[in-house]
């Protein structure tokens, strides 16, 4: 039989060897880690705070729901102005000079929050509801300036809105058909119907939650719950988990940049952080070829601790040879 191309015998020449059972070590590691994992699973279980639905949002915080829905209809919400990959806007497009990968990738989702979150679901719910049918007709037949006046006035009025029997009540004003639209949307949402309508697409099976998640993300209710669970970005939320469970602690470095200037105040913080992490990851991967980085292990004597038996043996061997 031919000699192996990578001759370990020559590589380790002069170094004593000891019996070694690779498979036994693997099995023991599997059993030992399994005991730790099962004990942790039995003792601590795992986190599972139920998801928020549009229904619970509308029931628990109807003013926030209606305020958010009005902003979707007015096109002033965060997601309506977002830009690629959801809309043609540019409010959330991040660039570094001419480097604009978000813009280059383009609008892949083609979201229309006014239609997707409000008018479309209301049109579906208008069957057998003449008040809603005429409110929708009044809204869609009005010119853009009139709609904007209604929505601006209604949005201002929502600042002082109250809730009565689950309904949002605002001061009297010239809001056109907007209050009827919002009252009906709130009713559909409170019944749970809007959860289904936001998910419904052109076919029966759906697994894409882009619309309802962006809609909820535009409101304050979900972020309030996230705040209570210390999940916000300013709370190092990326590496946190609900409750007191460990989260993605391995993202600590990624989370850290968001807490430090200039990242914490930069309008393009996400792009800066991702690029910083990309450079650091490349540096880690290419350590063997980068001077200084590859020399640090030789300068820092941690290896002497790791291989202390080897260095002791080496000293003793040399001493024995000298004697």
């Amino acid at each position, binding site marked *: 039989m031919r000699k192996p191309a990578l001759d370990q015998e020559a590589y*380790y020449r002069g170094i004593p060897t000891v019996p*070694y059972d690779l498979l036994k070590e693997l099995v023991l590691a599997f059993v030992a880690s399994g005991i730790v994992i099962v004990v942790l699973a039995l003792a601590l279980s795992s986190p599972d705070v139920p998801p928020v639905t549009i229904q619970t949002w509308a029931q628990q915080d109807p003013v926030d729901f209606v305020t958010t829905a009005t902003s979707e209809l007015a096109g002033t919400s965060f997601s309506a102005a977002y830009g690629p990959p959801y809309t043609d806007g540019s409010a959330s497009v991040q660039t570094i000079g001419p480097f604009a990968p978000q813009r280059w990738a383009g609008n892949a989702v083609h979201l229309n929050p006014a239609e997707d979150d409000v008018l479309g679901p209301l049109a579906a719910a208008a069957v057998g509801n003449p008040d809603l049918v005429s409110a929708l007709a009044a809204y869609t037949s009005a010119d853009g300036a009139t709609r904007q006046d209604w929505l601006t006035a209604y949005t201002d009025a929502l600042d002082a809105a109250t809730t009565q029997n689950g309904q949002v009540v605002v001061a009297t004003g010239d809001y056109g058909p907007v209050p009827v639209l919002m009252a009906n949307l709130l009713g559909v949402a409170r019944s749970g119907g809007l959860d289904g309508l936001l998910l419904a697409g052109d076919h029966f099976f759906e697994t894409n939650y882009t619309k309802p998640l962006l809609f909820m993300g535009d409101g304050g209710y979900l972020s309030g719950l996230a705040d209570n669970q210390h999940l916000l970005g300013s709370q190092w939320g990326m590496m946190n988990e609900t409750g007191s469970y460990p989260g993605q602690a391995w993202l600590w470095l990624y989370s850290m940049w968001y807490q430090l200037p200039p990242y914490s105040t930069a309008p393009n913080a996400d792009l800066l952080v991702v690029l910083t992490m990309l450079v650091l990851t490349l540096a880690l991967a290419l350590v063997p070829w980068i001077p200084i980085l590859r020399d640090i292990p030789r300068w820092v004597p941690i290896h002497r601790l790791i291989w202390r038996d080897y260095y002791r043996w080496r000293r003793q061997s040399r001493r024995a040879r000298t004697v």
Partner: protein
Amino acid sequence: MSIPSRAPAPDAPDASDPSWTAAIRSLLERRLPLAHLLPVRQPFFVGSWVYVFGVVGVAGLVWVIGSGVVLAFFGPGWWHVSGVGRFVNSIHFWSVQLFFVFVVLHLWGQYFMASWRDGRATTWLVGVVIFVVGLVTGFTGYVSQQNLDAQWIAINAKDGINATGAGAFFNVLDFGQMYGIHVMLLPILVTTLVVLHVVQVRMRGVVRPIEPQAPGGGGNPHTEATS
């Protein structure tokens, strides 16, 4: 067709055999002999505790994959409504934590051992890729949990991904896409890379300890990063 009159020759490697099978077999026998793949003796310095980290990382991955297979079989909603499902999810959750703890310890340990020396640079490179792919796998798992944490992580993380342009084809708000990637594509990739990494380690063996620098430079014959 003529019938061979004699018994076939012993099935031994033949350097002159032009077949692809013979070439692959010859290559494997030279690069990865069984004595390297399944060694029964090792240099005595592998008795150090640092070598345990990688092995426990692999063991943790086996628990992650095993519990993940059960969760995938019963579907993403099962563990929310079943006590057994919750327990299996807990196994999955804690084995992921264990896996990352030991992978990170392994990574730092290998860094301070300068384990890329003596032609092991690609072993290091594959190890870092495993870590990065592991991060993406963990992330897609977190957004596939179907709970409040998954909702918020997806909403929060979208901006970072969208800023790079990747949001156009990697939509963290699309549960179906994230779940599919998490339960099939990434586990296959991680497992393949881990197998490759272990084979790389077995092909060359563990790296020798760093030799002390001799006065006047030099002194370490094993510092090349070439592979």
